[in-house]
């Protein structure tokens, strides 16, 4: 039986509104229901691999109605969102006992997952904006969840910057509607292909790059991320850094640039420069941090730079009309790194949450020598650190290698050198973490810390296994079913509109 596409939005929404009805007595039932919902989403996402469909809501045909589109790129991101949200929900079963009002946390979490799924599946540009706002509002509330001093300050900063970005995006949508007369992405693409860009559409593209760039935390717009991600509770940091900045920021930007507007040389140079700036500035600001989660947040900025750099190189090759195989390789590197980063960054944030729950602190100078006391956390943290630093055979190495190879092939030797240097500095900062948290001497006040067992251990261990195994996604049979369709959607950008209108 085929799964109708709105199920991915309907299941989390219905769960989010069922959960507050349980009240205080039914907290265990509420948690079980939420876990069941994320597991159901994961199973549904796995069964959809390799299909591509258009679903019209209410059976209204396309220029009149709203449609949901599933193609290779949406499928890849749905998988990433489901995996990370399932693991994070398992982790938060025990972690969120420290906070009050757990049922509100669970329904906000489900709303955020519903919003992200809607962004990834939407085929209509205003629908994308609505789901983006749902996910963003839920995340503003979740960042300030503990209501302590720093969390409220971080949440206010994030909310102001995020609202300004959303307003820019709405302005861009209004300009696009005024210039093309339709809101459906396939019809907009057809109109832009036939009539070309004018000043209004170019301004709309700039507004979109600013708005989605702020959601993706690329460098001139990154100021909210180092405050928001450390202050959030650890499972929420994992979700924010793992999937929210990717699905709301990078996916939407890429979908609009490749499939709706069409790549051009200036746009791809902008992408490449944003990517390089993010990589370099993110990693150099990260090395000097002494707070574990703040260091991880700066590394998120830098790794997003990798993804955008890979995609930008692919866009430049396509815009110059060069070799399509090289462009596919660059885009493959970027998208593979996106999925890898979702897995290992969320694992790193979950280990930091585990350390914070056991020891009560996340400052590197107050920790030390936790190797014997917390063996599982140590193993998973080492695996994730090796992945992010790019050590073979973990998954980060393969995606970084592909990005470097594609940069060299396209003739950008300086960019390839910058990428390798940034990898080395990443390695330095993660060696710093290993030395300060796990090696060294155990301070006296931490003598009685214990390892965290139960669902937290299951979540961390499963993500660590994925880190090790995801390098196998490059085997030709798996690559053709999962990664290649995503790359083809982007390299054949203009085929998106013809596929949907004829379907």
């Amino acid at each position: 039986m085929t799964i109708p596409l709105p199920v991915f939005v309907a299941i989390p929404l219905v769960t989010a509104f069922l959960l507050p009805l349980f009240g205080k007595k039914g907290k265990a039932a509420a948690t079980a229901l939420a876990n069941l919902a994320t597991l159901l989403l994961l199973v549904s996402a796995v069964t959809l691999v390799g299909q591509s469909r258009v679903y019209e809501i209410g059976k209204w045909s396309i220029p009149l109605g709203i449609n949901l589109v599933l193609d290779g790129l949406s499928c890849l991101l749905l998988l990433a969102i489901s995996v990370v949200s399932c693991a994070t929900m398992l982790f938060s079963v025990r972690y969120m006992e420290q906070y009050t009002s757990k049922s509100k946390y669970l329904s906000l979490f489900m709303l955020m997952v519903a919003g992200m799924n809607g962004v990834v599946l939407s085929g209509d540009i205003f629908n994308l904006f609505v789901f983006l706002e749902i996910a963003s509002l839920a995340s503003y509330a979740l960042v300030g969840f503990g209501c302590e001093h720093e969390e409220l300050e971080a949440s206010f900063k994030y909310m102001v910057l995020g609202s300004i970005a959303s307003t820019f995006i709405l302005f861009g949508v209004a300009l696009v509607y005024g210039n093309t007369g339709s809101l459906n992405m396939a019809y907009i693409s057809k109109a832009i292909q036939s009539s070309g860009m004018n000043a209004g559409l170019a301004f709309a593209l700039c507004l979109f790059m600013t708005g989605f760039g702020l959601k993706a935390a690329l460098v001139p717009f990154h100021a909210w991320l180092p405050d928001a991600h450390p202050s959030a509770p650890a499972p929420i940091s994992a979700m924010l850094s793992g999937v929210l900045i990717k699905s709301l920021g990078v996916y939407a930007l890429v979908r609009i640039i490749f499939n709706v507007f069409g790549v051009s040389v200036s746009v791809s140079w902008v992408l490449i420069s944003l990517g390089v700036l993010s990589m370099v500035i993110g990693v150099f600001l990260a090395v000097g941090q002494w707070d574990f989660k703040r260091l991880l947040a700066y590394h998120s900025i830098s790794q997003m730079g990798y993804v955008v750099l890979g995609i930008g190189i692919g866009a430049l090759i396509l815009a110059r009309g060069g070799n399509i195989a090289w462009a596919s390789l660059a885009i493959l590197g970027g998208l593979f790194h996106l999925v890898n980063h979702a897995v290992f960054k969320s694992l790193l944030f979950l280990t930091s949450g585990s350390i914070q729950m056991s020891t009560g602190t996340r400052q590197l100078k107050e920790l030390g020598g936790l190797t014997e006391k917390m063996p599982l956390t140590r193993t998973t943290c080492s695996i994730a650190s090796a992945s992010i630093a790019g050590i073979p055979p973990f998954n980060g190495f393969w995606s970084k290698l592909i990005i470097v190879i594609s940069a060299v092939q396209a003739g950008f030797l300086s960019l390839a050198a910058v990428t390798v240097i940034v990898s080395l500095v990443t390695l330095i900062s993660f060696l710093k973490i290993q030395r300060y948290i796990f090696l060294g001497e155990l301070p006296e006040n931490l003598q009685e810390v214990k390892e965290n067992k139960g669902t937290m251990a299951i979540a961390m261990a499963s993500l660590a296994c994925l880190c090790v195994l995801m390098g196998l996604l490059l085997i030709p049979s798996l690559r053709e079913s999962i990664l290649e369709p995503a790359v083809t959607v982007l390299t054949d950008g203009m085929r998106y509109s013809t596929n949907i209108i004829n379907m």
Partner: protein
Amino acid sequence: MKGMTIIVKNISSFVKVLIFLFGIYIILFGHLTPGGGFAGGVIIASSYVLLMLAYGREFAEENLSLSMTSKLDCLGALLFAAVGLFGLFYGAASFFWNFIHQKSWWGEPFNLLSAGTIPLSNIFIGIKVGASLFLVILILSSFRLETSASEKE
């Protein structure tokens, strides 16, 4: 939050019923005249807010308590989702398919009972929006804005 003087209390106890009725009119006729679920919901919420302003917060909470408002909120959203899901089951298998209109169960155009599931959706959205707005204002009015000296640095 204290209430107001006795003149205001008497008049508002009469006017709030009229506002509530007006809100229900806007919701029910949403498919014929401008308005619909959201606008009618806001008007219904404002009738409860008038009650809260005129009589004081404690009286309004006895009238419609915090937990009841929260449950109405969730119920409105779940019923709206149920309307969407029924479209999936009644034959043509699509979410939000207008099954009442397409199967000609009721009404010709321009009557009150027409346009299928649209009046139902309007009613449920009206319940949800009214309950949500009243909940927001109820909770925001329970903050005390004095600062405690120990919290300041």
